[in-house]
């Protein structure tokens, strides 16, 4: 097993800052925009971006939600699934939704996330933000509008994203056999 660091803590922080600025360019004061992190790992990216955005634009409250798409997945019985909590304390009807996940790989999670989201209402539009985009490995035609880092990787490799909140250190590593 070999590992290669893709983002060290300093670079990680830079990427988060850049993504936050890109979001501000499009969403201005976030009055009609909501951030939704995908369970289980996308919620940390969403929370971090929310914190960063709140500091940057000094807006009282940017809506932040967490969405679980376990019951919408197409791969149950192929692996054991762990349902998590969905927390959406606001309506997404006619909102600009920014769907956030840590790694975009086959696109299947996002596909199920979109289905799950639609059951909560009809947003005005949905954008996808990911920290790491593993391009060239998609199973479904889904692309991110904002990507922290785009990488080329093969199926057998694993992208490991670590967060200060859960792993005591920010960082992204590419693991290869």
């Amino acid at each position, binding site marked *: 097993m070999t590992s290669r660091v893709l983002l060290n803590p300093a670079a990680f922080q830079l990427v988060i800052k850049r993504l936050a600025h890109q979001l501000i360019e499009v969403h201005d004061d976030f009055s009609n925009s909501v951030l939704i992190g995908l369970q289980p790992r996308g919620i940390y990216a969403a929370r971090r971006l929310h914190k960063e955005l709140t500091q940057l634009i000094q807006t009282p409250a940017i809506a932040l939600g967490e969405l679980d798409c376990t019951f919408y997945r197409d791969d149950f019985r192929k692996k*054991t699934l762990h349902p998590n909590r969905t927390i959406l304390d606001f309506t997404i009807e006619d909102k600009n939704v920014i769907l956030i996940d840590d790694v975009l790989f086959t696109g299947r999670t996002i596909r199920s996330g979109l289905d799950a989201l639609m*059951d909560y209402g009809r947003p005005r539009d949905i954008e996808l933000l990911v920290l790491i985009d593993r391009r060239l490995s998609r199973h479904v035609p889904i692309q991110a509008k904002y990507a922290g880092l785009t990488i080329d990787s093969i199926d057998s490799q694993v992208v490991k994203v670590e967060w200060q909140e859960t792993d005591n250190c920010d960082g992204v590593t590419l693991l290869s056999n």
Partner: protein
Amino acid sequence: MSKLSVPHLLGIKPLTTEDIHLILNTTSQFKDVLNRPIKKVPSLRDVTIANLFFENSTRTKLSFELAEKRLGADVINFSASGSSVKKGETLIDTVNNILAMKVDMVVMRHASAGAANFLAKHVNSIIVNAGDGAHEHPTQALLDAYSIQEKLGTVEGKKILIVGDILHSRVALSNIFCLKKLGAEVAVCGPLNLIPRHITTLGVQVFLDFNKALAWCDVANMLRIQSERQHITYFPSLREYQMFYGLDAKRLQTLNKEIVIMHPGPINRGVEISSDLADGPHSIILNQVENGVAVRMAVLFLLATRHDA
């Protein structure tokens, strides 16, 4: 622990404590789903479930059917009356014929204890026991545990009293197994001839005096007198039973504490519980019914998506 240790839900007895916690945790997720504007998820959209009810049921049957539909499963219903069972077909033949139509799961209620275990041994399908004779009614016990947890925060350490016809009750047995595994103290109360002789070996206390039992408990689960399973007379009259073991406001007022009142239904108003209490603020009877759908969704989801890696 993220998957059930058993391939079927035949009873609470074969479940581990982790299994029960897994089911109750998953139930919370489904309760969220049921409180949304769109109360439906497509998790089991490629699963077909047969509900076989060889015995009458209102709540359980509707609750299972609703749970299945909320999970996006295809549902077929079967009741013994008006079927070929009346023409002498055996249980295994009936079920195998239904399974030949590509059915993935079977939910069964049957008047004979052990029917679900028997089926699990002889047919190739996932079996969910929806009540077998006076043996077990696992989903009722799970929804009761969930309702207690929801009301009191936890089941562990709580004193739970089951009152009434313990001898003929599958709800009582499943509840005892489930609550004991979750760390509760359990007692039963009723006329001596309606209490199974060796019940204390399950680790439960027996009260014959209802007032003492009420003073002891945090939760009272009132059971119905199962007249359909009683082939001899166990007490002189329902009125006498009501005087000794019926819960009413007067009896409750003698306690200087509040207790939670439960009932698995159907209620015989004025016998085991008075109308004002059944509809009163201490009663969580309708919460139990509401939670029943979420619990059954959790059970069906966990069994259907269980994979053997």
